[in-house]
């Protein structure tokens, strides 16, 4: 242990001296490439051009998981960035790491940049706020799942593209019709656990985990093997067996199929909008995520996915001042409205949403307002605030595995979800042990 402390001290001396050399450089590690990466780079450029005291430097560190891991590893090595992008799944991990992070509300208070916690949309910031109302990380990109409809595919199968798809019962009928009409790929999904279990639970106001989905304590247990979830996964499993639901992978592999016009229905993040709009050579529209008529309290509200920005501990006051200014810049209405309109992610402030509306964006791009409405329609309950579970990335992996067993016909829905709960709980207990 001694050697490591010594080495650590040695490494951090080097790190400190190099920081002192470029005292006002703010490192931001993120997970975006491609179009999103370009938009992010634009934000940085705009901020850097707007003032001369601080320079934000963005570095892409791989996908969400890899970025979080790079941040954790860097912290252990004493080389952590000032700002780390962490996906919503990593929230509990970051929250538990009290010595490794500096809560955003503290950064803002000390840095003196304008900051009004009430300006942020409740449904978005709730995910990243303590039960006492302190904002721990700044929401960056947030989206919620919606239903994309390939209208041409409906017409081709002899169905009315305007038919009501607000309930899964209706979607089931549509799938029957699509299949009968010769459609090979009636339904695909992205992010199965997020859409079909996490959001399903919130949307029907049933718990995903005990203790308010983990908000109220580390001693939480998974509850996503309840009747609503089992019934849904059972129906999906049957659709998979009948060739009405086509499984393409754990992430959003299905997006490629849908954008190529091969599939009729697609449950995916509202942020998929830009991609669909750019690539789809067919007529499409966006609907709210379907719910089961008569199950739970549906429709309640859906929850977000995406990432937030965490400020890492171990930097000096001047750097935190720069961080607070940058975070304040990112929250400004212009930046947010532009981000929302270009990506399909939700605006994080109510002001940005109103600005977008005032600019006539929703009228010009029908369907883009659905996500916001779906999230804010009702005040969130304990079941629909979000999820705060340790080792949640792993738990999602377990859920993915168990769902795959259902889609492959190896397990029935109840067995698979029971098994996911059991395996996930073991991880929650380990997380509790490590962070007690």
């Amino acid at each position, binding site marked *: 242990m001694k050697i490591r402390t010594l080495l650590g001290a040695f490494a951090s001396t080097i790190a400190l001296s190099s920081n002192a050399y470029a005292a006002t450089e703010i490192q931001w590690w993120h997970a975006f490439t491609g179009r999103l990466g370009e938009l992010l780079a634009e934000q940085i450029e705009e901020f850097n051009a707007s003032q001369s005291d601080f320079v934000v430097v963005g570095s892409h560190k791989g996908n969400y998981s890899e970025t979080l891991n790079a941040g954790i590893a860097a*912290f252990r090595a004493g080389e952590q960035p000032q700002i780390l992008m962490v996906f919503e799944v990593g929230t509990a991990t970051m929250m538990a790491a009290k*010595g490794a992070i500096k809560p955003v509300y503290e950064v803002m208070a000390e840095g003196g940049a304008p900051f009004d916690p009430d300006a942020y949309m409740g449904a978005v910031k709730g995910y990243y706020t303590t039960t006492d109302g302190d904002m721990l990380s700044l929401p960056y990109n947030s989206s919620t799942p919606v239903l994309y409809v390939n209208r041409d595919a409906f017409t081709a199968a002899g169905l009315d593209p305007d038919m009501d798809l607000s309930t899964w019962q209706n979607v089931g009928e549509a799938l029957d019709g699509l299949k009968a009409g010769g459609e090979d790929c009636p339904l695909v999904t992205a992010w199965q656990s997020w859409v079909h279990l996490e959001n399903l639970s919130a949307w029907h106001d049933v718990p995903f985990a005990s203790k308010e989905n983990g908000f109220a304590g580390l001693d939480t247990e998974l509850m996503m093997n309840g009747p609503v979830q089992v019934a849904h996964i059972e129906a999906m499993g049957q659709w998979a067996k009948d060739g009405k639901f086509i499984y393409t992978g754990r992430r959003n592999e299905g997006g490629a199929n849908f954008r190529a016009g091969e599939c009729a229905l697609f449950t995916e993040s509202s942020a998929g909008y830009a991609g669909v709009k750019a690539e789809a050579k067919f007529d499409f529209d966006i609907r709210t995520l379907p719910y089961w008529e008569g199950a739970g309290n549906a429709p309640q509200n859906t929850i977000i996915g995406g990432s937030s920005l965490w400020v890492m501990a171990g930097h000096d006051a001047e750097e935190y001042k720069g961080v607070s200014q940058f975070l304040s810049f990112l929250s400004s209405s212009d930046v947010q409205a532009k981000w929302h309109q270009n990506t399909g992610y939700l605006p994080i402030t109510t002001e940005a949403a109103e600005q977008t509306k005032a600019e006539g964006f929703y009228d010009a791009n029908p369907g883009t307002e659905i996500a916001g409405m779906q999230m804010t329609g009702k005040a969130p309950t304990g079941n629909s605030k979000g999820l705060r579970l340790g080792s949640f990335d792993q738990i999602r992996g377990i859920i993915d595995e168990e769902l795959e067993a259902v889609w492959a016909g190896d397990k029935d829905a109840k067995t698979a979800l029971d098994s996911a709960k059991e*395996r996930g709980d073991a991880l929650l207990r380990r997380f509790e042990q490590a962070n007690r």
Partner: protein
Amino acid sequence: MEKRVTFKGWLLPMCLLMPQIIITAVFFFYPAGQAIYQSLFIPDPFGLSMRWVGLGNFEYLLGDPYYRASFVTTAVFSLLVTVTSMGFALYLAVLADRLIKGSGVYRTLLIWPYAVAPAVAGVLWLFMFNTRVGVVSWYLGLLGYDWNHVLNEAEAMGLVVVASSWGRVSYNFLFFLAGLQAIPKSVIEAAAIDGARFWTRFRTIVFPLLSPTTFFLLVVNIVYAFFETFGVIHTITSGGPQQATTILVYKVFSDGFVSQDLGSSAAQSVILLVIVGALTIVQFKFIERRVHY
């Protein structure tokens, strides 16, 4: 075996050994010791605290049916890779051995996949069998076979086995060809004169004479499948579906670096340490790896 003639002094040889010893101590023995030490704790991911759990990590692992299954997966995977790559290599080597001229040309054509990294091989095969754009999966679809290694465990296993075996054929081919060419032709000829057909000759004479090579390759290929196929698994399946292709080495990585469960990862390191130790002993005991001391 000792040199009769040696130089005197101890300072110089110490200095000569130092680079290797330092590297070995710092990057091999210290980390291995750390792995054993850490396996008794559950640390938090950020290294802020460590909680003593004794053998708790081992209990947790051995109680996890997926970890136990990963042993079976590793065994099945290694066996399939070994059999596939050796079988195909033997087929090619037997053919090349029949040629009077030109076996050198085929050798050149067949050995270079050895140089392709397992991870790159993984990308190539993933591309061929990609469920959306893959050429092979598309033609299979045309034949009415719906290829989906993302969901089907057997297909996923098949794909990682083939991708791992592919570059390995070169290596095995080289050793089989050398082994075949070392068999005195007069022996085979005598059998041929006795009227033994090719297959009989192969079965009764050639293959037994080839057994030292075969056994050597068996062990070397198993070791390869155990440790060096990480790149293939990581690029093609990431251990899925349902951990059907999660071999032990992949799990130690994913628990340690993807899931940040350092206690579990360290405990797995210790278990792997025992396995590698056993494999190394087998390798040395049964293959004449000429180390005498």
